């Protein structure tokens, strides 16, 4: 009965949202609709952003250097700009999105256990469709305010619902240097800044996210800012329930080469944002970054990463550590290296090696994630991926269940 109610609700929301979309709309997410531009303007194999997409995201979901020029779906004005001169005798002017800025993302998985569990063949295959449904909404209210709302339903057998939302006030001190964000801070953000799990192209999460940084997304307040070559975020978050002390975090990144975090450095003579003719994903640059999370639960997390984009190749390396002050013998740390390569605009292959050293003993893991992300359409992605453990102590030594085992995945992922 619960399942029936749940699926009725999901289908009703889906039908409602589809009917709100323009009849002639191609299947494109909200930002693509707003600017009447393809996904590839901002995404290099979504959800990973291109350099322009990252600048767009940091700028509060607005095009850097003159957003208004590019908007094709005019917003609804909540006051002409000249009303700034009338304030405080008038409400500060802004605007709201024209069309409801809602996107849907549906993810389904086929998983095959290829480990030597000894089970019969019928028990090795699992299908989850959908595995995940995301309802996303984001945009801006005028020049210097932006918002984000994300609702995730995962694994229908036992629905896990994640909800995050935030509002950001920008350009408080000098342009881009100091912004304030309030809401669900950090969810999907408190990771090594240049290898954020939320922006991965693989089906599998980063091991550091699975084991160390996942769930660091409580409500709070964050100050952030960015320039051409740098960006930072510093925040305070607190569990939604209870009166526990808050946690603090700091995240920072540097970039050398390529389009700046602020979108500068890529402008043509005509004032248009430059796109490289060789490949929309290209942005030759080197990144360095790190984060520190001082948890109120006496568990602290640290991480550093580096990434090198060179034409069609991406190389990254990182280290994430967890220190448990209460139980020092249960510390964990993950080191990883990864490589991605664009064979074609629609085909990006990848390989990632990750190693988890954990306490207590007999908890170490090392695995290789290898596969390819294929864009059947700009908004339809297929991942063919294998996960192979080179060290699997929990299973081999502790005899844990076969979920921690070599497997192959086929993921279908589409968004509109």
């Amino acid at each position, binding site marked *: 009965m619960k399942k029936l109610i749940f699926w009725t609700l999901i289908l009703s929301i889906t039908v409602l949202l589809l009917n709100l979309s323009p009849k002639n709309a191609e299947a494109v997410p909200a930002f693509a609709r707003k600017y009447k531009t393809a996904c590839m303007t901002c995404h290099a194999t979504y959800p990973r952003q291109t350099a322009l997409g990252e600048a767009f995201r940091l700028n509060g979901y607005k095009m850097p250097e*003159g957003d208004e020029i590019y908007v094709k779906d005019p917003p609804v004005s909540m*006051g*002409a700009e000249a009303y700034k*001169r*009338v304030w405080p005798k008038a*409400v500060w002017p802004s605007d709201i999105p024209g069309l409801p800025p809602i996107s849907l993302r549906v993810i389904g998985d086929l998983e095959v256990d290829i480990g030597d569990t000894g089970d019969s063949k019928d028990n090795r295959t699992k299908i989850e469709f959908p595995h995940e449904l995301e309802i996303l909404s984001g945009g801006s209210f005028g020049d210097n305010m932006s918002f984000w709302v994300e609702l995730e339903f995962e694994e229908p057998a036992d629905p896990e619902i994640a909800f995050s939302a935030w509002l950001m006030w920008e350009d408080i001190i000098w342009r881009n240097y100091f912004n304030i964000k309030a809401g669900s801070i950090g969810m999907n953000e408190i990771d090594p800044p240049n290898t954020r799990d939320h922006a991965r192209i693989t089906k599998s999460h980063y091991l550091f996210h699975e084991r160390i940084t996942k769930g660091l997304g409580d409500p709070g307040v964050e100050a952030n800012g960015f320039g051409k070559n740098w960006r930072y975020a510093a925040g305070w978050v607190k569990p939604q329930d209870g009166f526990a002390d808050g946690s603090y975090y700091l995240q920072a990144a540097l970039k050398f080469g390529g389009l700046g975090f602020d979108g500068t450095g890529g402008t043509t003579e*005509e004032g*248009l944002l430059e796109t490289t003719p060789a490949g929309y994903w290209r942005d030759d640059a080197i990144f360095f970054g790190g984060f520190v999370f001082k948890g109120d639960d006496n568990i602290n997390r640290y991480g550093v990463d580096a990434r090198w984009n060179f034409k069609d190749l991406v190389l990254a390396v990182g280290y994430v550590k967890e220190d448990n002050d209460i139980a020092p013998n249960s510390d964990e740390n993950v080191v990883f290296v990864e490589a991605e390569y664009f064979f074609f605009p629609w085909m990006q292959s990848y390989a990632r090696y990750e190693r988890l050293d954990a306490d207590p003993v007999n908890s170490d893991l090392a695995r290789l994630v290898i596969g390819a992300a294929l864009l059947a359409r700009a908004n339809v992605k297929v991942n063919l991926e294998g996960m192979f453990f080179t060290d699997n102590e929990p299973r081999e030594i502790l005899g844990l269940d076969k979920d921690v085992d070599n497997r192959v995945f086929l993921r279908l992922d589409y968004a509109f």
Partner: protein
Amino acid sequence: MRISRGSITIICWMILLALFVVTKPLSSLAEEGGTIKGLVKTPWVRRYQALVYIDRVEGKEALPPKENPFVSQAGLVFKPRILPIVKGTTVDFTNDDTVVHNVFAPPGSAKRFNLGTYGQGVSKAVTFDTLGEVTLLCNVHPEMVGFVIVLQNSYSALTSDKKGNFEIKNVPPGKYRLKVWHEKLKDVYQEVVVEAGKTVSVEFKKKAFKRR
């Protein structure tokens, strides 16, 4: 040698004709102005028009028109959005909607005024006696905006397309400062020399413009 009367008549007419042919173009040159044609190369003109105008023409203070231009409030927008006028012009503000409207100029405008709220079919007049930009707002509908640009002379043109093309005709020969006004950008200018009967081309490059 005697020249007949008929021959003298013919010779006189030929002289007169020659004089006419020679002097007519000269007099035309004295009356005919030049043309300034060009391009405002900023992507902002795709969104909002720019106004290109001659800052000052000495000895050519333009007189206000006999018939008042008007700015209409229709469909909850000011029409036209940008109205260039010469100093001393009286503009009629007419409410062509079925809802009440208001017109006022906020701080920073060359002329401050507030016409109060008024209903359909009512028209109110304002005389603009100071050079500069006057922003028009409506305190009933905050999203409405318009601009009256008060100029020293009548030599101006709005960009005619999204590429930023403009043309100003019949400009008296001389050296002038040509300015560009845009609601989102700071003013820029260039010096231009206009010759009678000729067209001078001007281009305002994107790099020259800065956001307000």
